[in-house]
């Protein structure tokens, strides 16, 4: 293994370990953190790549944050990159939960913990709102296609529809649009 590759792998592991250790509130918060580190800081993905890979990660079964880590790691350093990125994402929560499972049963009754989390929870919502704006820019949202993210968000949130359905619809639309364009250029 060359020196620069092993350096990248260590970097991947450390980055995802940090993200795994500091995200309370589940997968989407981790995605918000990943955007900051992967796109802005390390430039492992462009903004567009980040969104495309997020769509792949979301369309696959399993844990969103781990799927995303695998995609980033695989792009930067193949299989080992994928493995260590996934491991970095998993390990912090594994150790924390194992400790809780072995030693505590009622962490949620602690008043100090409860106060701290009362502050963290609304902030976590803000952390997820922020990438809506950055990804909207990268996805080239304009007045004409504005309705797509709005309708998607409202239907998922208030009608309980599955996000996968919307990705499937977009795939069908993308393929047929390309097919029709091809046909048009051929007949001209």
């Amino acid at each position: 293994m060359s020196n620069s590759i092993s350096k990248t792998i260590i970097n991947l592991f450390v980055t995802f370990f940090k993200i795994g250790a500091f995200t309370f509130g589940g997968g989407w918060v981790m995605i918000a953190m990943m955007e900051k580190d992967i796109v802005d800081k390390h430039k492992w993905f462009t903004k567009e790549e980040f969104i495309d890979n997020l769509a792949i990660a979301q369309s696959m079964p399993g844990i969103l944050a781990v799927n995303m880590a695998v995609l980033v790691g695989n792009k930067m350093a193949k299989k080992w990159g994928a493995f260590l990125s996934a491991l970095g994402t998993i390990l912090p929560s594994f150790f924390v939960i194992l400790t809780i499972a072995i030693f505590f049963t009622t962490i949620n009754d602690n008043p100090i913990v409860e106060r701290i989390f009362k502050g963290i929870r609304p902030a976590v919502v803000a952390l997820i709102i922020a990438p809506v704006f950055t990804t909207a820019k990268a996805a080239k949202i304009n007045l004409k296609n504005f309705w797509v993210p709005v309708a998607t968000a409202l239907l998922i949130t208030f009608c309980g529809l599955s996000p996968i359905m919307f990705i499937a619809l977009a795939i069908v639309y993308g393929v047929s649009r390309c097919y029709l364009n091809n046909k048009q250029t051929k007949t001209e």
Partner: protein
Amino acid sequence: MIYINLLIAYLKIGLFGFGGGYAMLSLIQHEVVEVIHHGDTQPWLTLQEFTDIVAISQMSPGPIGINSATYIGYKVTGSVFGSILATIAVCLPSFILVLIVGKILLKRKDNKYVKSVFSAIRPVVVGMIASAALLLMNKENFPDYTKSIAICVVAFLLVRYAKLHPILIVILAGITGYLLY
């Protein structure tokens, strides 16, 4: 036997758990609270125990799917090995699938069709992230309409305009919560 059951249950959760996080919870609940596994006389956990695990998961870092696997793996077998086994099992199916699909799509990313599909998907992904935020705007996260909304607004301004790192914001928000409540 318990280890094989645990392995199979979490492989299943990892393979069929689409939609991440909270969508996965119903599948986990089914496997650990409702199903009586081969050789057992009762489900692994009661509904009360399961609710506690969800609460603990929300207060611990990391994805909720991993948290529940680690916790339930330990509680069901009483051993660290059970914990490791369930955690690996829940990640394994998607790890393999994502590697394969990612590789195929990466190779064809300049293909006309792949390009067209991704440009169609992007606006949808923006909506998905927005819905993740909307779903969290509930009584649980905003118990009052004053302090919690203020924390949310300030956190948003800090991450969007002051470009503070999200980790720093989580820490600051924790301190703020401790001082305010």
